[in-house]
């Protein structure tokens, strides 16, 4: 176990011992270690790297340190910057987890139920990765989809997220009232400068899903220079559009017969996504 004090030292430690695993909050990693599923050859603790525990502004963007905890991001000052990420952080498990778990950890664990992931997808955030060759940028969706990988010696240093100055919503459905993993979640952000609505659905697939056509359609209905309100029927239709895009009907069989019906559980999930997307849009435009 090493405890580097800067990103540079952390990269050096990871390069020197490629089998070592970086650890920040440890809420996922240490659970796997304790249950015997993982036995890392070494650990590089990121807790002392102060430069990744805060945020700074950079050309209309926020440069978020990967070591920001959920608890920190849940506070009102952060919520004023990126409201959806703050809401997702507040929903990310019980206080013990939120106090320790970090933004970077949520991304690298890449659990389908990771609460920050649909928000980052909707924000089209970019990861700033530190490595032996310096820093490089990777769109967060590329990492989650496996289109880009972290190379040996690399770790996530920052997340670059746009500051949109407009309403954002994160909603999640869970099986209980207390903290629980999402059965489905929806992040929705308005981007008035680009006259866009961006939406991502979490927890129902291996990575957050973006219903791009539904986004474009609903953005075309919004009066961006006016009150930005929509009829309830439009929100309803948006919800159905998003849900059908993320959980499509089964394909019709080749012989042209009836398409098989969705299983009741899947149908319920689709209804849940529709309700969440409708409620999220309604909230963002209210």
């Amino acid at each position: 176990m090493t405890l580097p004090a800067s990103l540079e030292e952390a990269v050096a430690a990871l390069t020197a011992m490629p089998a070592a695993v970086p650890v920040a909050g440890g809420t996922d990693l240490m659970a796997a270690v304790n249950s015997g599923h993982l036995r890392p050859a070494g650990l590089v603790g990121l807790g002392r790297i102060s430069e990744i525990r805060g945020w700074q502004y950079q050309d209309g963007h926020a440069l978020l340190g990967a070591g920001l905890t959920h608890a920190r991001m849940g506070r009102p000052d952060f919520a004023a910057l990126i409201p959806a990420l703050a809401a997702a952080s507040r929903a990310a498990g019980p206080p013990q987890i939120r106090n320790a778990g970090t933004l970077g950890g949520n991304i690298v664990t890449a659990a389908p139920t990771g609460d920050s992931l649909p928000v980052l997808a909707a924000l089209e955030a970019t990861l700033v990765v530190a490595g032996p060759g310096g820093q490089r940028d990777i769109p967060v969706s590329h990492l989650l989809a496996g289109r880009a990988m972290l190379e040996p010696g690399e770790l996530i240093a920052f997340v670059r997220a746009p500051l949109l100055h407009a309403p954002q919503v994160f909603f999640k459905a869970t099986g209980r009232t207390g903290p629980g993993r999402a059965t489905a979640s929806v992040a929705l952000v308005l981007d008035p400068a680009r006259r866009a609505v961006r939406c991502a659905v979490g927890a129902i697939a291996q990575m957050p899903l973006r219903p791009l056509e539904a986004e474009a359609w609903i953005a075309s209905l919004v009066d961006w220079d006016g009150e930005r309100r929509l009829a309830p029927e439009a929100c309803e239709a948006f919800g159905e559009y998003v849900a059908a895009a993320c959980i499509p009907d089964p394909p019709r069989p080749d012989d042209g017969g009836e398409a098989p019906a969705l299983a009741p559980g899947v149908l319920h999930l689709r209804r849940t996504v529709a309700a969440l997307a409708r409620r999220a849009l309604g909230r963002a435009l209210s």
Partner: protein
Amino acid sequence: MSNDAATAAAAVGGTEQEQPAHGLGASLPAADTRAKTEGTFPYAADLWAEGLLWAAILRSPHAHARIVSIDTSAAEAMPGVRAVVTHADVPGDPNYGRKVVDRPVFASGLVRHHGEPVAAVAADHPDTARLATAAITVEYEVLEPVTDPEQAFAAEPLHPDGNLIRHIPLSFGDPDVTGEVVVEGLYRIGRQDPAPIGAEAGLAVPRPDGGVEIYTASTDPHTDRDLAAASLGLERERVKVVVTGVPGAMGDREDAGFQLPLGLLALRTGCPVKLAANREESFLGHAHRHPTLLRYRHHADAEGRLVKVEAQILLDAGAYADDSSESLAAAVSFACGPYVVPHAFIEGWAVRTNNPPSGHVRGEGALQVCAAYEGQMDKLAAKLGLEPAELRMRNVLATGDLLPTGQTVTCPAPVAELLRAVRDFPLPTLPKDSPEEGWLLPGGPEGAGEPSAVRRGVGYALGMVHMLGAEGTDEVSTATVKVHDGVATVICAAVETGQGFSTLARQIVQETLGIDEVHVAAVDTDQPPAGAATHGRHTWVSGGAVERAAKMVRTQLLQPLAHKFGMSTELLSIADGKITSYDGVLSTTVTEALDGKELWATAQCRPHPTEPLDETGQGDAFVGLAFCAVRAVVDVDIELGSIRVVEMAVAQDVGRVLNPAQLAARIEAGVTQGVGAALTENLRTPRGLVRHPNLTHYALPTALDAPDIRIVKLVEERDVVAPFGAKAASAVPVVTSPAAVASAVRAATGRPVNRLPIRPQAAVSNP
């Protein structure tokens, strides 16, 4: 006084009464409260011995497979490994079982469920032991598992004993009678896990005489000792089970299946051996609540009075018999609930499958049928256009009525009073009426709650359980009370599982002897047996034994004084360590009266015997019954199907309140466990494999899920055959709460809700 105590006191007397500081009726705190709060209380996982080895168990990854070969050579060759044992190394009986001896200590030839022990290793480090189990090569021929209990009847026998563990065709009254109104229903109850907060752990220490001492959180130490001795091939006297702190017990804990590998490894290595299960092993190792399938047909007359109940009840016992026979007896006997039913035809089966074994979990059998018969009562009420509470009121059982088993209810059965109490209790305000309270919507504070989609529902359920062992179980407990130097000590093998026995024992001695300082000795099997810590046994049987022993000590203490002053011992009283006569002439201290002597007395308590159910399900099978009424108020988001239980109002038949704070805590715990069974707790086992043996996916209720629990009435009608007149209090709220929640969700959504736990898709308004 704590809040709990205040609530309970208010529920008893209507107003807050002054409570005594000691003795019966006092809210005496448990002696270990402080140590448990501060984290210094020692549990089995904290035990340590010089030179101890660590054990690990290799468990079957398959639900059903033939073992072709087991090769332990690689594991044995690992440095640090001291012993590897399999079925071939069991010196005594290769099988064990509390009621039916049908379960191998280690699988031999066949594995019948996921997680069945196949081998065990002792090594000098826990990681070495785990790695060694991974190095054992077991060649399996995977077989098709039988996981649907309905398939078990026709399937090839999974065990030499066959697939039918028990069948009870209860027949009561006239089968040809019919009612004017008939409702039918099919209900499914899931697999609740006891999920004790402390996972299983134990330490076995070999003795110089060739025996072994096992330190663990056993809840039935004498039975476990006997089973361990039989399988270890030792005389009983050479096996001693020492009970450590119990970190939560909702069923049997650390039973023989856990103790045997430990004992065997200690004997093989000659060293102390410790085994501490992780969460996954804990889920795989202990028994679960019986998943149950129930078909019901209720007949009633036009006024809503029950005429006949027909039911088929199928309990999935899993791979081994365990407690299934008793669970089935409870399910069949209480299939109609605390309602008067003139004609009943209940057929029950417990069958063997390749699912994880089911066993004793609080309220077993009774919980499953409660959810079903209350579902039927709701259907009847809807069909007759009656209020659900009114329909129930027209059918409630009372003392003197008959159970479908032909047994007359002789104990107090204040069911109507309980129902009236919860029905008449004011309903909680609606969010729109008190917006300032910051209402928690279904789905939680950061969920997707949408007030306009939330509907409120109110539901009722009445439940019952039996106390003590049923069907002719010999119930006996022995206790010793010792007084020396003004301090009393209780020695009784009743295990304190959190049910509060040790506090109660202290209160009984305080009450009888007037001595405030009372210690309860640790439990081991050198003491005479007291029975398992289940079915309210210790409040009744062990509490009764403690009282008798204390009374004998009292007589020994007072007789010489009484003799000296020429009065009977009844005219002397003891309080605050002082003995005084009725006229105040005599006044001395207990210490003086003892005069340096040590007084001992040992007594037994044996309740009246019961009889097994006969071939038509008839018989006086139960010693006592306890009843409970629950009114649930739920909020349901009818689009997402998310449910929040807002309030549970409980009225309970407790006989007598012995410790108000403890009683309130037991009821609150029971209701919360019931809410878990109703909404989230279900250990899923697709194809017989335990899917998610962890507390992330097995969702226990958290503080946010636990509703407001209002104990609105505690009916104190003393049961004359029970010591102190008190009834067991822990199980009946667990039994009744899930049915009440289901009833409330029905009211909120208009959906049938025939499955527990309630899935979100069953709670959306238009599916």
